């Protein structure tokens, strides 16, 4: 392929403005991308990013050139009836110029792509990921590791063929994500693991704290692993011999602990290349259930209605209906196929560095959400799904991968369809501290019953919620507010108070006449809106106070932002 720029074979590249550090080809960097040095992206990046268009242009040019070449070397005199040779030469000369121009543009394009690739470098340091790019307008983007909301690795079909992957680091904020596209596939997984480890605080803990940590106290998990791999601990001892063995005993202990912690990460994290070793998914979606869940969606109702209208219309000779409804029907076919490809090969698994959700058949997507990044969880069930006992789980997170899910939808549906046991398993993953018997019972009741564990709306709320007033209620337990409502669309929303942004109560004239109020928990924008449409006035204030106090108490107590510290 002439379009693919030759990767530099280790030699220092052309002078890149503002980068005195030597650049290295990723091919030679298989070991570690997170070493604080500047690195290049995958050599096929220009091809993959602007590639298809470029290839098309090239193909067009070559196709035309061939014709011109034929013209050039075998000038066919077709200008005038008397086969004027001068005219033919003149024409040939023009062809040559055109040829030259095309070649020039091509070379320029190649040079620009190559230069852009050389100038696009990234580095992963101790506390930030930094990306530099641009030829004329340089941009330098730096994302703090402790602000990472999620890391998504996607592999479009073309990139998969080349063995490349796109790694996107989501941080909160509009258009603030850091994209590394493209990286070598295996390297992307390794880099994600590295970044998450850095973000987890495991290495930050390695630095001795000023107040000094107690040498005797050791986290249970670390101690357990230390027992498992005692040899590892022994190995690290001579390494840290440079420290003051006698005076700095606490330092020594912290270092050992940190080293062991790193080993924990290395050994326990099943974040291998997902193509090579698939992580153990806690939920399996049988194909039958997947198809059923998609058929029994709201779209189908619309589709059936449209079909009926269509049949009625054709039966009565109104053929124009066909042309009006056809786009809708075709669109829904696309919708179904997207849904299916999205949910195929779905997997969700817990790793020490967060929940990992993967899906996709041809283009795959694989996102890791570190602990403490989920702001709200919603368990829903439409009435169509109720006979089968299927549920769906959606979440709110602060950072959103701009890389849409395989279906072109936001990656917020973490369980497309699952039964009660699946729901409990997924909830145990996304809220690990909320999986005791009591919590499970509470969640179950919130999902499907009108039980009295929840504080429900009074009878007069039936004026506004004739079906669901008995279910509309809340419960606050162990730092999580559970809001349940809905009968036709059953919903249970779980909001960890540690990440609540604010809480509000509202009242309009109708609610006032009934002595009711509306309560709302404000979380980061997303598909989940935690709110209670009706609540008793006094209960509203109790809830308001409890939530406001809980938000302060639990956010102060929350340490999951640096989950390994």
């Amino acid at each position, binding site marked *: 392929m002439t379009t693919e720029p030759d990767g530099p074979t280790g030699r220092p590249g052309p002078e890149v403005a503002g980068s005195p550090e030597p650049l290295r080809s990723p091919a030679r960097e298989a070991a570690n991308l997170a070493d604080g040095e500047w690195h290049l992206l995958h050599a096929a990046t220009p091809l993959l990013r602007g590639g298809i268009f470029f290839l098309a242009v090239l193909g067009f040019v070559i196709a035309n050139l061939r014709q011109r070449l034929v013209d050039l070397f075998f000038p066919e005199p077709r200008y005038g009836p008397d086969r004027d040779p001068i005219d033919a030469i003149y024409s040939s000369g023009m062809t040559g110029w055109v040829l030259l121009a095309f070649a020039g543009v091509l070379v320029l394009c190649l040079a620009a792509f190559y230069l852009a690739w050389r100038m696009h470098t990234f580095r992963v340091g101790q506390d930030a990921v930094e990306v530099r790019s641009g030829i004329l307008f340089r941009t330098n983007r730096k994302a703090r590791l402790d602000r990472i909301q999620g890391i998504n690795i996607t592999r479009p079909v073309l990139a998969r063929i080349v063995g490349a992957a796109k790694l996107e680091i989501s941080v909160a904020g509009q258009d603030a994500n850091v994209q590394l596209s493209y990286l070598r596939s295996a390297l992307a997984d390794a880099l994600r693991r590295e970044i998450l480890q850095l973000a987890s605080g495991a290495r930050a803990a390695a630095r001795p704290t000023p107040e000094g940590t107690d040498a005797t106290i050791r986290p249970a998990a670390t101690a357990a692993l230390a027992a498992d791999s005692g040899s590892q601990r022994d190995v690290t001892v001579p390494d840290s011999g440079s420290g003051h063995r006698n005076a700095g005993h606490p330092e020594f202990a912290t270092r050992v602990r940190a080293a062991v912690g790193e080993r924990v990460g290395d050994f326990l994290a099943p974040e291998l290349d997902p193509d090579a070793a698939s992580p153990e998914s806690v939920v399996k979606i049988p194909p039958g259930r997947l198809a059923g869940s998609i058929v029994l969606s709201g779209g189908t109702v619309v589709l059936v209605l449209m079909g009926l209208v269509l049949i009625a219309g054709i039966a009565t000779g109104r053929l124009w209906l066909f042309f009006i409804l056809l786009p809708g029907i075709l669109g829904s076919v696309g919708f179904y196929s997207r849904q299916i490809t999205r949910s195929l090969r779905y997997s969700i698994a817990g790793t020490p560095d967060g929940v990992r959700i993967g899906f996709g058949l041809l283009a795959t997507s694989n996102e890791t959400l570190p602990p403490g990044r989920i702001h709200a969880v919603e368990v829903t069930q439409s009435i169509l799904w109720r006979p089968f006992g299927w549920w769906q789980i959606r979440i709110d997170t602060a950072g959103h991968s701009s890389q849409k899910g395989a279906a072109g939808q936001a990656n917020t549906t973490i369980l497309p369809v699952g039964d009660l046991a699946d729901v409990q398993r997924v909830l145990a993953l996304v809220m690990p501290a909320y999986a005791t018997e009591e919590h499970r019972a509470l969640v179950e009741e919130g999902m499907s019953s009108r039980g009295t564990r929840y504080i429900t709306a009074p009878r007069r709320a039936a004026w506004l919620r004739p079906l669901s007033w008995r279910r509309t209620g809340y419960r606050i337990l162990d730092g999580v507010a559970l809001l349940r409502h809905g009968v036709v669309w059953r919903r249970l929303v779980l909001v960890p108070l540690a990440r609540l*942004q604010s809480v509000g109560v*509202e009242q309009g004239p109708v609610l006032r006449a009934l002595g009711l109020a509306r309560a709302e928990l*404000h979380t*980061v924008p997303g598909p989940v809106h935690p709110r209670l449409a009706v609540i008793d*006035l006094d209960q509203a204030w109790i809830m308001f106070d409890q939530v*406001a106090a809980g*938000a302060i108490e639990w956010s102060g107590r929350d340490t999951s932002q640096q989950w390994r510290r």
Partner: protein
Amino acid sequence: MRNRLELPDQQWNRVSPKYVVVVFVGSLIGGLVLAAIAVAFLLLNGAWWGWLALGVIAAVTLVQLIIAPRRARSIGYWLREDDLLFRRGIMFQRFVAVPYGRMQLVDVTRGPLSRALGLADLRFVTAAAASGVAIPGLANQDADALRDRIVQLAESRRTGL
């Protein structure tokens, strides 16, 4: 008014009384613009409903002008130990509690009329778009003091997102 949404212990800080003028002028201008549109319709095609629209606009504007002082008075805030409490509205009441640690930024804006009156509007932004806490019509020095105080409180109680 037993059914009214109200907190029993009253320690609300209210906005400047001069803010009534801003609400008043705002309602008036809004009413005038709408009335001008209605009049334009009347003149252009003489639609009969133009008179109706004009009447409705006049009535709504009048009601707004009458309740302007109450609307301005209904806005209140209260700096509690760990969070900011905010209230607004008479007919449609709204109470919001925002922990200081969740404040992402504090905006101070001054419109032309507010500036003439020596007022400023404060807006607090959290990571949630729905929080929507904005305290309009504070006297300039109050606004600056409140902003500094909030920023200081937010800094001392900084938490993650």
